[in-house]
């Protein structure tokens, strides 16, 4: 009698479990289906609405944009601009992260430096990079250098603010534990404090990635691209100037695709394999 009950409860338990898994799976399918059908609807609307409303000179149908994207991609024009943009962005991000690392380290070592940094951050953090462009142009001239400086400015402050927030939120028990287990100075910072602050550092990098694109595209639109190839910002500006509306949208699509690819394939996968796996999400 009891065994029978037990068996039925085990079976129903197993059924619950598979039901749950099924539910999870079907939820995932539903979620993906919703996203995909939204995109399809959007593309369909984009394809037919301009022709119906006879505004296809301003907004070309979707297939024309795709064609322009494809053609420009293979003739190399677009790729050249994409490559140039990425070069500027990665230079900016690399220098920005390095600077942020040094400045954050100084803030942690010296309380006085931290005080100075507080003031600098409250001045610089709310200042849009574009507003600084005239000053930067005067100081650094009309070259790629100025754009890299604007990118660095756009990402440096959020990187530092996030990293400092990370260091300030390290649980006391973790540093005490590190010391108790025999760690001191740099070892303690490197082996205990930085991993503890990592969730905040990573979210700073995610913000930096989005911000660097905004900085690049807007700087190039204001600034133009004299004496160089120019990045995607310049490409979009140029195509608009020559009324190549499809080309303009192709430029926009490139920005979106690169942003999504890096976010999904690089940043989110780093997040999944570190912060999420360790249960340290902010």
């Amino acid at each position: 009698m009891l065994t029978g009950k037990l068996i039925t409860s085990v079976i129903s338990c197993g059924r619950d479990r598979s039901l749950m898994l099924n539910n999870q799976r079907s939820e995932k399918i539903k979620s993906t289906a919703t996203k995909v059908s939204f995109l399809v609807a959007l593309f369909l609307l984009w394809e037919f609405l301009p022709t119906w409303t006879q505004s296809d000179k301003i907004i070309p149908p979707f297939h024309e944009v795709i064609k322009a994207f494809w053609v420009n991609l293979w003739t190399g024009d677009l790729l050249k601009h994409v490559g140039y943009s990425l070069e500027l962005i990665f230079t900016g991000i690399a220098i920005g992260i390095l600077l942020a690392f040094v400045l954050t380290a100084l803030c942690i070592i010296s309380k006085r430096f931290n005080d100075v940094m507080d003031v600098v951050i409250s001045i610089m953090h709310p200042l849009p990079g574009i507003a600084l462009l005239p000053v930067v142009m005067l100081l650094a001239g009309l070259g790629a250098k100025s754009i890299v400086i604007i990118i660095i400015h756009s990402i440096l402050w959020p990187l530092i603010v996030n990293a400092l927030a990370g260091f300030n939120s390290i649980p006391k028990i973790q540093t005490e534990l590190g010391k108790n287990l025999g760690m001191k100075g740099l070892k303690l910072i490197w082996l205990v404090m930085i991993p503890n602050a990592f969730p905040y550092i990573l979210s700073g990098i995610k913000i930096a990635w989005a911000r660097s694109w905004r900085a690049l595209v807007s700087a190039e639109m204001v600034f133009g691209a004299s004496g160089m190839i120019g990045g995607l910002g310049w490409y979009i500006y140029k195509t608009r100037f020559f009324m190549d509306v499809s080309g303009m949208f192709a430029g926009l699509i490139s920005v979106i695709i690169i942003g999504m690819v890096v976010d999904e394939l690089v940043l989110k996968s780093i997040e999944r394999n570190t912060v999420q796996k360790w249960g340290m999400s902010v």
Partner: protein
Amino acid sequence: MSDLQIKNICKSYKLENKELKVLDDISISLNSGDFLTVLGPSGCGKSTLLRCICGMETPDKGQILIDGNPIAGIGPERLMVFQDFNQLFPWKTVEENIIFPLKFNNISKNKAELKEIAEEFMDIVHLKKFRNAYPNQLSGGMRQRAAIARSLALNPKVLLMDEPFGALDAQTRAILQKELLLLWKKFNTTIIFITHNVQEAIILGSKIMVLGLMPATVKIEQENTIPYPRMPETKEFMDLWKILYEQLETKRF
């Protein structure tokens, strides 16, 4: 495996310009391999006492000697196990949590040897199956086990335990008490174990101490001679329980 002498330590904190005396003239003398359980009402300064021995705090007066030598700051010869479940490094697996401190304390540089040590201690605390699990995948009891294993692997002179089972359910607590006694018998480590649970203090300690409230002074210090394993139903257990319970001040500020 060392003897510990605590001589007349005092400690006070400043609280809104008032001096708050936490520890008043506490002396403890432990032989190598003693298991001292410390009882006291919450807020009495039990943790402060332990933090002083660990070196996280410096007493205002008095001396702490290990094998006759005064302690020097914080270090791995006096290891603390906290109540907090967050005392493992969350980015390291159970195995790495044990190996990592061994590595930078130069216990061994040899990878195979380190793995062997970790293996031994994971086996003792029954976590072999979970060697590749991250702390957030473990239950509270497993995390405390891993923390104890990590501490013991470093072979400390004194193991300081600040209510390590305080946040566990009664059943897990009973299991871990048994395991801890086995570990203590195997390694003969000198242990100071803080608790506010009278029963736990009797089950574990070879010596029991009761502290008074604000400032903490030693009210009782006595040997616990009831043979292990100690059962709460026995008369000697209940008699001791009564004595200790009466000495525990229950009134608050």
